[in-house]
Every structure is written in structure tokens, then in C-alpha cells.
């Protein structure tokens, strides 16, 4: 068998997987999205129908807030964890990455246990302030849940990046008179930028598309995955659900693509 033929044969499994599990379903989804009462207009409806637009904006805002908060918390924690050795550090790092082991449903359940009607926060605030603070079943609860499972993903990436920081750069900045704030602003944070972009994109895409947590907390939270679910199952509006799915996919994919172009292809989608 000629060598070239052999190489082409090796390509076959990849081609089969791409066609069967990627191209065909995607094409079908796009076609279905345009086959409803609105026709191709279903795609425009995502942006122009007030209910859909509000949900899209809501979802993007939630994802942005999750990403920003995860980055902030994970950067401070990651810098500390990578730079200091103390007893119990390994255990703490293991604990911080624990949420990776849970599906969204379990995370949602934990949020209910924390901030639900019978939750821990409510039972503390009732005697203190005379009222029960309950926010598990709202977008705030969802935000907390997303934060919970975004932080591990971000913190691991940041810790890996901190480990690779060139210490002599920080020493050089200090020698030139830079105090701790200036060293962080001018040396450490710029060096961590690729890690921010990579882990931020994953946090964003995950928060855009996560479903389990939202589904566990309440069915009436206004986020895109929930909207797709209700359009599909309750309203049986399959075409609109397909159009919304394509829209959601595009936003998340754009975030990852943008991140990839910044960080040179090291962004792996997760979640």
C-alpha cells in the first residue's frame, strides 16, 4: 500500500466522527431553526423579540459577572497558594478543585442547602435581622452556583501560570523601585494575561451554557439554556429552540475563538 493511501485511510475515522457527530447535527440544527412559523426570522427573533432578547442579555450578563468574579477571586487565591508553602496547603488546593467532581445538579442542590428556604444563610439571618434571606431560586443563586464551579477551573490555570512566572522580572522591577502594588500591576498581571484570557473564556462559555444548576434551582430563571428547554418541552416550539441553541452556541464559540486568538490556541473547552 502506498504511503499516501495509508495516510488517507488514517484520516477516515476523523472524517467519520466529524460528519456523524458534528457536521450532520449542526446542519440539521441550523435547518430546523429556520423551519418554524417565523422561518429564518427565528434567528432574528433572538435579538428582536423582547422576551428572547432580555434572556440573551441576562445570560451574557450572568456569564460576564461569573467570569469577572471568578478571575478576581482565583487570581488573588492562586497567587497566594502558589507563592506560599504552609501546612495543609495540598489539602486546601485539593478541596478548591473539588467542585470539578460535581455535576450541575449537585451544585444546585448545595446552593439550595446554603441559600434556600431551609438554608443555612436563612437560618442565620432570621435571628440576626428578623428575616430569612433566601436567594437560591433566583439569578443570584445561579450566580453563586456558577462561581462555585468556575473558580476551580480558573484557579488551576492561574496557579500553573504563576508557577511559570519569571522571578527575576519581579526582582528587576523591585530593584528599579517598584513596591508590591507596582510589581503586580506592571509585571505579574501582564504576565498572567494569557492565563486570564484562557481561563476566562472557559468560565464564560461554561456559564453561558450550563443547565443542570439552573434546572435544579428553578425552572423560571431567565437564562438561555432554560429558555431552550422550555421552548422545546413545554411550548413544543422545536424550531425556536433550535434557533436559540444555534445563537447560544455562537456566543460561546465566539468567546472561545477570541480567547484562542489571544493566547495562541491553548484554550480547551470544558464543562
Amino acid at each position: 500500500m502506498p504511503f499516501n493511501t495509508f495516510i488517507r485511510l488514517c484520516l477516515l475515522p476523523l472524517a467519520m466522527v466529524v460528519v456523524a457527530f458534528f457536521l450532520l447535527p449542526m446542519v440539521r440544527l441550523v435547518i430546523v431553526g429556520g423551519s418554524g412559523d417565523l422561518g429564518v426570522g427565528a434567528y432574528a427573533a433572538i435579538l428582536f423579540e423582547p422576551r428572547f432578547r432580555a434572556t440573551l442579555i441576562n445570560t451574557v450578563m450572568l456569564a460576564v459577572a461569573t467570569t469577572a468574579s471568578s478571575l478576581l477571586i482565583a487570581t488573588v487565591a492562586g497567587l497566594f497558594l502558589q507563592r506560599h508553602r504552609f501546612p495543609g496547603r495540598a489539602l486546601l488546593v485539593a478541596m478548591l478543585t473539588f467542585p470539578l467532581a460535581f455535576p450541575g445538579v449537585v451544585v444546585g442542590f448545595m446552593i439550595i442547602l446554603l441559600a434556600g428556604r431551609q438554608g443555612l444563610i436563612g437560618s442565620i439571618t432570621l435571628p440576626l435581622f428578623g428575616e430569612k434571606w433566601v436567594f437560591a431560586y433566583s439569578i443570584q443563586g445561579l450566580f453563586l452556583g456558577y462561581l462555585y464551579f468556575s473558580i476551580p477551573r480558573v484557579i488551576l490555570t492561574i496557579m500553573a501560570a504563576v508557577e511559570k512566572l519569571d522571578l527575576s522580572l519581579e526582582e528587576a522591577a523591585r530593584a528599579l523601585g517598584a513596591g508590591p502594588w507596582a510589581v503586580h500591576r506592571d509585571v505579574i498581571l501582564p504576565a498572567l494575561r494569557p492565563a486570564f484570557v484562557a481561563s476566562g473564556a472557559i468560565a464564560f462559555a461554561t456559564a453561558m451554557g450550563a443547565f443542570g444548576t439552573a434546572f435544579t434551582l428553578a425552572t423560571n430563571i431567565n437564562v438561555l439554556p432554560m429558555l431552550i428547554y422550555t421552548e422545546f418541552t413545554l411550548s413544543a416550539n422545536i424550531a425556536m429552540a433550535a434557533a436559540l441553541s444555534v445563537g447560544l452556541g455562537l456566543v460561546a464559540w465566539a468567546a472561545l475563538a477570541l480567547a484562542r486568538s489571544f493566547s495562541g490556541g491553548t484554550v480547551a473547552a470544558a464543562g
Partner: protein
Amino acid sequence: MTGGQGVTLRVEACGKTFPDGTRALEPITLDVARGETLVFLGPSGCGKTTMLRIIAGLERPDVGGRILFNEVDVTGIPIERRNVGMVFQSYALFPNMNVAENIGYGLKIRGIGKAEREARVAELVALTGIEGLVHRRVDQLSGGQRQRVALARAVAARPSVLLLDEPLTALDAALRERLRVELDRLLRTLGITTIYVTHDQTEAMMLGDRIVVMRKGAIAQIGTARDIYFSPASRFVAEFIGATNIVEAECHDGMLALPGGRLPIQNGASGAVVVMIRPESIDIISTEGAVLSGRVGDVSFIGDRQRLTVSGAAHKPLLVDAPNSLGIKAGDIVGLSVKPEAIRLLAGD
């Protein structure tokens, strides 16, 4: 902090023991004069970099150690307020800033205005000969250009002390030679009190007003290049600096008894001695009337001269530098002569 171009530097009983108990540095005391260039020279692990980091303020000396700039104790002052300039082996240029921003960083941190900063950067760019590169990103620079930028950045804010940690080690041999000359000129122009760490004896001898030869965390010898080359304090120093012959022999009546003959020496030692003879101090003469002779082994041509190994004269083959004009080939029997004053008696190891 102390400003200006030159301070006196005093290192007082500075030792360093790392948390794991490793003794990196025995307590060392030394003084550096205003504007002097002092080179710490030694093999890796001798403590020279630790010494530099203590002077910089990146490491604290063990209790009892003090660093004084112009008689002022700066031991407790962190590096960012010590007003030192530092050049790292890796140059440590900020990748997120261009050349001009790198050079001007120390001035910016000190709150110096844009106009003054730009004027000073331009001055240093001219001094270090990197005109035309100011807007480049640092990853677009060659090794030699990076070295110049690192030096310009280190001296931009007129530091009290300039610290250089193996600044030429990362460069290839030809470039290193050229930059050594350039660096020497720059250091003399600037007149800053300078501490220079290297493992390269040629660099040390060329750049240092004085050289501190370090070994296992302690000073093996301190002196000018000539002192150290011609009068090494120990066998370690003699072997570390330059090519040399260490000869172990018996000495009687002012004569060194060797397998290939006898050599007159100056001082009146007797018994078993260790002496040093530099290859260039041995002259090749005719075997007739020679007090010492041997057989030529290898002949290596090293450009301006040829280096021979002569066996049979001493217990171990001797390195001898001879002029190129001398027609010598392997296997020749030659006579050797050494002036008594070129034979240095060595103490200890």
C-alpha cells in the same frame, strides 16, 4: 536614600545560612571604594551570587551582618528603596514594555515627569549605542542588544550601587569579547560603585579594579588582577585563574629537585613544597647547558603563540607557552629555563 553616582560600600560580617541549614556564605567583611568596580569571581556555588543578592537587598544576611552605603546602615531597607541598579544574567527585561519603557521604568516609578524621563532615556540610548531600537519590543532584540537595554535600565535612575550578575554569560564568545570592552568603557564613564559577579576570569581581570576570588562561601583572595595572577594566595586561586603548572617537589639548598633536572628558586624553603609556574614564564632553550629538560608531547597552536606539554621534566607534564617562530614538534627533547622569581611558593590547598 543616598543619591548620586558613587557611594562607599561596606559589607560587614555578612554570612548567609539558608533555612534548610545550608551555609551559603561565611561571614565576610570588605570595603568598596567610591566608584570602584569590585568583581566577585568563583566557580558556581561559591556564594558569589548570594553575596550580590545580600548587597542588593534581595536576601537578608544572617544576624550580625550589615550592609552600609556611605556609612549608612541599609541592611533593613528592602531593595525597592535601596536605590541600586541591577543587571540580571537573563536580563529580565519586561516583555510587556518596549525598549524605551523598559529603560524609563525606574524613572516612572520615581514619579519623574515625561519630558525629563524621555531626555534621560535618550541620553542612555546614545550612551549604550542602541539608537533606533527604542520602539522595539524586547523579544525583537538580539542578545547583545538586550544586554545593553538591561544596563541602560539599571543605571537610568542614577543608582548608588550598580550590581551585575553574570551579565555576559548568556552571550556567545565573540559577542562577549566585544561587549566586555564596551562594558569596561561604560563602567568607567559612569563612575558608579559597581559589584560584578562572574565565573569568567578574563572578564574579572579586565573589568575589576579589584577581584574577590570566592571558594565555598569564603574569600580565597582579594586583590588586583595582577596580585591574583602573579601572587595567588593558595593553590585553589592559582589553578582557578589562568593556565598554570602546579609542581610538587622536594627543595634543597635553594634548588627544586625535579625528575628532569633542578631549578633554582628564590626563597629559602626546604623540604616538600608546592610551587606554581605560569606557562608563559617557562622558556624553551637548547638542551646544552640546560638545568632542566623534557620531551615535547602535544603542540597546540593557539593563534598568538603555541602551547606545548613537556613531559619528563616534572612529575606531571608541564604546560609551556612558546612563540610561534620556534620550530618545535612532538617528540623533541628541549631544555627549559625558568627565572627564579617566576616560581611562586603556594600555601595550603
